[in-house]
Every structure is written in structure tokens, then in C-alpha cells.
């Protein structure tokens, strides 16, 4: 991230103003409950800033802010609001017949998803500008891909731990920095003429997109949500191969070459392996080991479907209206020329 994001309301303004100074007790306003916390601009940006302190930090912000009790207290209030909205919006899916049926229960969660498919739209219809917008949206997560789920590692043991480590090892490039999935995504952004620097598009991203990332941070930072975090990852891996094939094919349709499609192509094959490991060995393995977490695992999967679906609807509705799906449209002409356009 190059500079601190622009505030979007009372809470984010108070937090960002405080973070620019050295660490001190924060006198922030008590957050009022917004109409729709799951897409509220102020709440989601405020949470996003609080969470970034636990990843790579924010530009110019003292490291000590990460554990400043007054900021953590405010974050807890914001999280309570976010969690209450999630609980209200996402019903708990029916439990499986047993841990050996976890893959079927997770698949039922995926099959119940009635949101329109952004991947299908990108494959067939998206313009270059819309494709670049999609990549900007995705950059909020993909430039730190796998990091939120890595918080599950010290909280698991035995078979589910071995399963998640196998998945994360692939995500982190099997020891090759050039193959780290976040790096492949940065390469794709670069090839598309987008700014691949971490956090470059935060000001552009609507609250509904930030919420999809904040969800992972919420589940990742709280050990009590380890079951939901595992369910979130499992569904993410299960629903990844086919959409990524569609994204790659949309890029090729628009004339982009290998460097732009590598990230998406890699996910088709990698996630075809991860799908089974995540559903059966990781999610099923955790349910077998700790049956009390079964409900949380499925709910975590359902929260992914719910928030991704909301973000997808908002994106496609904007495009149908001929509008930008971002808060601030990308600069005109940005990346509009594929380097390997067919003649």
C-alpha cells in the first residue's frame, strides 16, 4: 500500500487520523450499527485497516498500533457488528450424516449458491475494462492469497493439519518465490497494465469487496472461528478450478497471453488437487477429530458463498448498467492493449 486509504465515514476517519500519529489511546466514536454492515463503506474500510496491521501493516503507521488496546477494543465493536450481520444473513447449513459425508454437505452448500457467475460473464462477454475491474477487485485478496487461512496452521493438529499444510505449500509456490500464487497474480496484474503494488486499489474497492477479505481475517484471527476458517478454505478450493478456467479463457478471448493467464491456469490444476484434499482430508478430517466444530465448518463455507454472491451481484449489476463496479473507475486506457493481441 502506497499511502493510507481515504476515509469513508466517521469511524474510518477517526482510525486513519489516529494511525498517522505515533501510538496513543484512541478516542474513537462508538460505532452505530449501519443499515447493511456487510457492505457498509465506513465499517468495512475501518475493519480492513485494523486487520492490515496484522498482515504487512499500513504505510507510515507505527508497528505498535497492532496491539494497542484502545484500537483492539474498537475493532472488537466493529467485529461484533460484522458478526451479527453475518449470523443474521447466513443460516447454518444442515449437518452431514457423519464426518465421512462432509464433502457431500459442503457440495450442497455450493450447489445452493444462486448468485450469478462472474466467471461465466468474464468468459463470454466482459470487455477489457470490465476484466481489469475484476482483477482490481480480486487484488484485495489475491496479493495476500492464502495468508488468512495460514492462521489455522498453529490451531490444528494431526490429519487436518497435514492436509492444510499440503494446500498452503502449493499456494506458497513449493519453495519457489516466483511460483507463489500471490506473485503469479501480481505478474498477471503487471501484464494487464495494472498497478501490482500491495494495496494500490483499496480506495477503488467497494465495501462489499472489502467484506469478502475482512471475512477471512475475522475467521483467521479468532481461534474460536477455526472451524469456520477451515470451511471457508475448503469451499474456496472446491469452487475454484472451473471459474479459473473461465477467467483464463476470457483473458484469451480478449487477446491476452501466457503471462496474464498463468495465475488462472495454475489454479485450474492446483485446485483440482486441492478440492478433494480440502473437502475430505481437511474439512472431513477436522469434523472427525472435533465433531463439535462440524456446524462451524459448514457455516464458514456458507459465509463465503453469501459474501462472494453479494459482491458478484453488485459487480454484474453495475456492468449491466454500463457503469463501473468500482468506487473510483480505473484511469481510462489503463492496460487496454493486450501485449499479445491477435492480429
Amino acid at each position, binding site marked *: 500500500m502506497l499511502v493510507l486509504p481515504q476515509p469513508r465515514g466517521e469511524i474510518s476517519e477517526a482510525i486513519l487520523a489516529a494511525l498517522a500519529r505515533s501510538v496513543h489511546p484512541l478516542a474513537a466514536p462508538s460505532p452505530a450499527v449501519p443499515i447493511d454492515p456487510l457492505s457498509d463503506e465506513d465499517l468495512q474500510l475501518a475493519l480492513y485497516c485494523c486487520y492490515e496491521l496484522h498482515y504487512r501493516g499500513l504505510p507510515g503507521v507505527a508497528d505498535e498500533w497492532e496491539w494497542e488496546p484502545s484500537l483492539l477494543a474498537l475493532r472488537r465493536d466493529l467485529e461484533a457488528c460484522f458478526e451479527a450481520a453475518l449470523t443474521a444473513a447466513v443460516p447454518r447449513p444442515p449437518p452431514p450424516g457423519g464426518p465421512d459425508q462432509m*464433502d457431500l454437505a459442503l457440495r450442497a452448500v455450493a450447489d445452493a449458491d444462486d448468485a450469478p457467475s462472474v466467471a461465466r460473464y468474464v468468459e463470454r462477454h466482459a470487455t477489457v475494462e470490465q476484466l481489469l475491474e475484476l482483477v482490481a477487485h480480486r487484488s484485495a485478496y489475491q496479493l495476500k492469497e492464502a495468508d488468512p487461512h495460514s492462521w489455522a496452521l498453529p490451531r490444528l493438529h494431526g490429519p487436518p493439519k497435514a492436509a492444510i499444510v*499440503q494446500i498452503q505449500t502449493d499456494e506458497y509456490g513449493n519453495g519457489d518465490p516466483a511460483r507463489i500464487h500471490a506473485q503469479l497474480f501480481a505478474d498477471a496484474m503487471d501484464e494487464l497494465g495494472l498497478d501490482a503494488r500491495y494495496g494500490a486499489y483499496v480506495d477503488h474497492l467497494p465495501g462489499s469487496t472489502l467484506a469478502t477479505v475482512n471475512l477471512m481475517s475475522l475467521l483467521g484471527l479468532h481461534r474460536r472461528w477455526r472451524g469456520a476458517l477451515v470451511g471457508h478454505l475448503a469451499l474456496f478450493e472446491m469452487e475454484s*478450478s*472451473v471459474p479459473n*478456467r473461465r477467467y483464463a479463457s476470457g483473458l484469451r478471448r480478449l487477446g491476452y497471453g501466457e503471462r496474464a493467464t498463468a495465475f488462472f491456469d495454475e489454479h485450474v*490444476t492446483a485446485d483440482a*488437487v486441492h478440492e*478433494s484434499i480440502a473437502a475430505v482430508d481437511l474439512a472431513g478430517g477436522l469434523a472427525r477429530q472435533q465433531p463439535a466444530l462440524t456446524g462451524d465448518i459448514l457455516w464458514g463455507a456458507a459465509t463465503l458463498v453469501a459474501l462472494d454472491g453479494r459482491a458478484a451481484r453488485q459487480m454484474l449489476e453495475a456492468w449491466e448498467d454500463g457503469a463501473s463496479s468500482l468506487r473510483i473507475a480505473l484511469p481510462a486506457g489503463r492496460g487496454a492493449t493486450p501485449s499479445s493481441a491477435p492480429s
Partner: protein
Amino acid sequence: MDEARITSYRDGPLLVRGPFRLEDQDGTAIDAGRDTIALCRCGKSRTRPFCDGTHRLVRFRAPSGAESRHAG
């Protein structure tokens, strides 16, 4: 791991873990590019012999264990 382990996943691919060599019918090696691979079991993948997740789209159904010869 001393030997390859092949796991058949319900309604999904065959996962191969451990030391293995993948080759075509002429014995030419097929580069898997990774240590654990998923082999297509539904027949509909566009990246055969590897799985590309298409089994979900075609609603491929198969048990994890062996099918009985006299079933159905």
C-alpha cells in the same frame, strides 16, 4: 513415502501421492509439474489425463470405494 498412494475420491478424481512416473502409451514421460496430482476420472476434463474440476459441472457420480461387479 516409499510407494505411490492412489486415492479415489467420491464423485471426483484419483489423487496420486508419492513417487510416481506418469507416461503416455509410448513410454514418454508426461510432466505433471507437481508432487501430488489429480487424474481425471469423469472423462470430461479439458486437461486430460489431469483433472480440471469439470466433474462438478457434469455431476459425475462414483463411489470412493470399488464398485461391485454385479451392482445395478
